[in-house]
């Protein structure tokens, strides 16, 4: 279950970071909090119910990690490697992903909606039942991935490749698409306007 414990700082509407009473901004020692979170994410154990929003992750290797029911809403990820990870029922909504890798991922029931993705790769991945609604993606590669029942509606896609993907029931309604490739994919089984 996604914990929603409010930050104890008066007037703050954000949620408290996992195991703390305040959000990252109102934490007494944000650097220490980030160090603990980064260390936890760098190992390959299961992480369940982890909550940290509005944080910056830069130049990190989170490959082979396992996330379940975690909330990273509004975070910024720059050059972060999530390759070979399992991400289930987790929230990355309204985030910025810059040069991030999600290759060979098993991501299900995950929410990336409202995020900006710049030069990110999601190749050879299971991305089923994943919510990409309203994303702004530029120069991203989803090739050879299974996007069964995922939802890209209202997304802005520029120079995005969906080569040799499974697009059965994938929702592309109301999308703006420029230089988007569906080569070798079953786009006729996807949903368009």
């Amino acid at each position, binding site marked *: *279950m*996604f914990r*929603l414990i409010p930050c104890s700082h008066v007037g703050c509407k954000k949620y408290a970071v996992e195991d703390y009473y305040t959000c990252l901004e109102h934490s007494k020692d944000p650097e220490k909090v980030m160090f603990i979170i980064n260390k936890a994410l760098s190992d390959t154990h299961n992480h369940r119910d982890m909550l940290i929003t509005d944080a910056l992750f830069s130049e990190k290797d989170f490959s082979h990690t396992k996330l379940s*029911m975690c909330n990273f809403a509004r975070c910024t990820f720059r050059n972060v490697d999530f390759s070979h990870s399992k991400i289930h*029922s987790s*929230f990355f*909504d309204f985030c910025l992903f810059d040069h991030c890798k999600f290759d060979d991922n098993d991501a299900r*029931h*995950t*929410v990336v*909606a*409202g995020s900006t993705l710049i030069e990110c790769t999601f190749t050879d991945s299971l991305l089923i*039942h*994943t*919510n990409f*609604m*309203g994303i702004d993606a530029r120069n991203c590669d989803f090739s050879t991935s299974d996007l069964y*029942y*995922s*939802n890209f*509606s*209202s997304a802005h896609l520029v120079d995005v490749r969906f080569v040799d993907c499974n697009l059965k*029931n994938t*929702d592309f*309604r*109301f999308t703006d698409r420029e230089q988007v490739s569906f080569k070798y994919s079953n786009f006729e089984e996807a949903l368009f306007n």
Partner: protein
Amino acid sequence: MKIFSHFSLNDFSNTYLIGPENGGDAILIDPGHIDINLINRIEQNRYNIAHVLITHRHPSHTAGLGTLVKIYHPLIYAGSPTLFDLPVIPLKDGLFLDLSGIQVQALQIPGHSIDSFVFKTGNALFTGDVLHAGRIGSTNGVLEKALLLKGIKSKILTLDERFVIFPGHGTLSTIKIEKLFNHALIEATASDDLDQISHPSILT
């Protein structure tokens, strides 16, 4: 409290299992299809299905009931008075339920079907076919659609934007995401705004 989602190939519907952290009585929402994976998940978590909540009576959300009642003996809560001749506890709009310690509120939002309910527990909202990620439930006509939109606007969009939506079909979402990117809701809200602007009391 733990929430598990289970994808059924029977009309591609979602079934949700809600239970306490360390086993015990659990709730199953919309048993569209009971398969070995779902049974394994229930048993591995040492759950007993004590309650079943039905969002509406369409087969993709109820067809597994026959199998389920042969294994467990749950109380079944639904808006419809009958389901396969099984005893049903009827739901009413706004009803609060204490289901083995898990607090659930039932909200009636007709339109997709006359017996449609959504269930609110904690910060989770189980919307059945009332609201999916990026779309609203299908309806038989304009009146039903208007009724559905009215219910969504008054009972769902008024909740905290961070509520997590667990729909009957498709992906997870939040109320904020739906407000921003669900075209059916955007158009409905825009038409409301237009009505407001063109209302005679404003023009005069």
